[in-house]
């Protein structure tokens, strides 16, 4: 009795298991059918389309796609590139200028100012070591001094006017209002455009005669590795110009050339240059301008309060022998030997 009961129970369990398995497989089969059923349709459609050779592409959409990608047509308008209906180049330029150059330029300038401020507060200016000797050595002649200050002043005015044109809308319009700012912006544009000419000439007249003193030499590596003695330690050796000055010279030469060339392309829009050229030049102009402004802040700091005695050198052209020995020892011994 008990035995047959167990048997029935076992067969009951087996039956249920079988049924469950059947249900599961039915579901799998249904799922497969749902997934696979449309596939023959795809084969058939592809075949018919290929057979007829139609609708593989949409000619109208291709047509307007080309127009969207700056295809050019015929027009009676004599303006440059007037045949182009839609050109995206300006969109990229707008994003680069407004969302990249503007904020990162501001961060760069802020970083430089904060870094210099912090350095000044913690390390203070580089003082002349010991007493002045009273013996003067000629470092710059009258030509050097004049050309330096012409470049410096024109660069300064152009930096300020350029920054006003770049950041005025964000910074000055909230202060002065749009009407008030427009007058200033107009003045900045004219000054920026006109001063470009004396700046370019003076820059060239400064770079050429100074070239030979700014060629990198063996002692410069040592100077650079010690950061010019900026963070303590012995003042490293240097010729007439130290490696820092040389780097600034080359940055100004390269960046200045980029600035001048792009500036002239932008300032004379009647040279038949195309919009794409002007957009590229504008990006180069603002990027090189911002970098040079940032570094020039550092240069101005060193030349004024940062290094005692440096400013007099660019005003009178003469430096004290003690200063020369401290900052430019190789040049100093050269001078002494010649005397």
């Amino acid at each position, binding site marked *: 009795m008990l035995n047959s009961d167990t048997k029935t129970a076992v067969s009951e369990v087996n039956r249920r298991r079988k049924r469950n398995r059947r249900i599961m497989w039915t579901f799998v089969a249904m799922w497969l059918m749902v997934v696979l059923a449309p596939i023959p349709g795809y084969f058939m459609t592809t075949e018919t389309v290929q057979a007829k050779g139609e609708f593989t592409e949409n000619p109208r959409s291709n047509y307007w796609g080309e127009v969207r990608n700056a295809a050019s047509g015929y027009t009676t308008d004599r303006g440059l590139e007037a045949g182009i*209906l839609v*050109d995206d180049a300006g969109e990229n330029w707008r994003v680069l200028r407004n969302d990249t150059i503007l904020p990162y330029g501001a961060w760069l300038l802020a970083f430089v100012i904060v870094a210099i401020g912090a350095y000044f507060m913690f390390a203070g200016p580089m003082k002349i070591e010991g007493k002045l000797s009273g013996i003067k050595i000629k470092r710059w002649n009258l030509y050097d001094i004049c050309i330096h200050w012409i470049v410096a002043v024109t660069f300064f005015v152009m930096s300020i006017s350029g920054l006003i044109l770049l950041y005025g809308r964000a910074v000055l319009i909230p202060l002065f209002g749009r009407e008030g700012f427009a007058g200033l912006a107009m003045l900045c544009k004219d000054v920026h455009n006109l001063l470009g000419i004396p700046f370019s000439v003076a820059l060239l007249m400064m770079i050429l005669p100074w070239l030979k003193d700014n060629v990198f030499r063996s002692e410069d590596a040592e100077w650079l590795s010690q950061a010019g003695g900026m963070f303590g330690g012995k003042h490293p050796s240097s010729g007439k110009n130290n490696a820092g000055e040389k780097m600034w010279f080359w940055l100004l030469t390269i960046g200045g050339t980029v600035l001048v060339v792009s500036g002239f392309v932008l300032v004379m829009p009647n040279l038949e240059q195309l919009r794409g050229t002007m957009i590229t030049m504008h990006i180069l102009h603002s990027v090189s301008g911002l970098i040079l402004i940032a570094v020039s802040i550092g240069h101005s700091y060193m030349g004024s309060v940062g290094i005692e005695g440096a400013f007099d050198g660019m005003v009178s052209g003469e430096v004290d022998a003690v200063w020369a020995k401290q900052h430019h020892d190789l040049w100093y011994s050269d001078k002494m030997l010649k005397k």
Partner: protein
Amino acid sequence: MARMKFLCDAERCIECNGCITACKNENDVPWGINRRRVVTLKDGEPGEKSISVACMHCTDAPCQAVCPVDCFSTTPDGVVLHNKDMCIGCGYCFYACPFGAPQFPQNEAFGVRGKMDKCTYCAGGPETADGSAEEQQKYGSNRLAEGKLPLCAEMCATKALLAGDSDQISQTYTARILQRGGRPQTWGWSSAYGE
């Protein structure tokens, strides 16, 4: 509020340049400046199409975003206007505009750009009194203030160039498309002339 737009039906434009003439005349547009132009694509080939284009009075306009003196304003009708007193002629709007709409008079030395000029949607200037002589001289006519639409579209003989509230002109255009049928082979160039 209405949002004014232009729409040019390329299937209808016959490159008569009537819109250009209307614009030049109505707004006293100076020599060398074209607020509107007609561009013909595939000129003389199968599939030739003409389109009249001017400032599209963009929503969130790129020109507005880059102008260093922020002299653009969008009227409640969605018309993008710029103030010529403030404009410094830097050309940035011309760099940014996808449609080549901003124009510059080049009568100063070395081609220095004068004040920017572009289509005003026949809505005059942002700061001048509606319909004043000053406005006519500086920006051209203000038909919108008189309850009229831009003359280019009003003059268009084939009604290819539509101007008006964007909802209404898109309705007109949709009705045209529906009437033509969705298939390109039943209307347009190929049905008229064969490929």
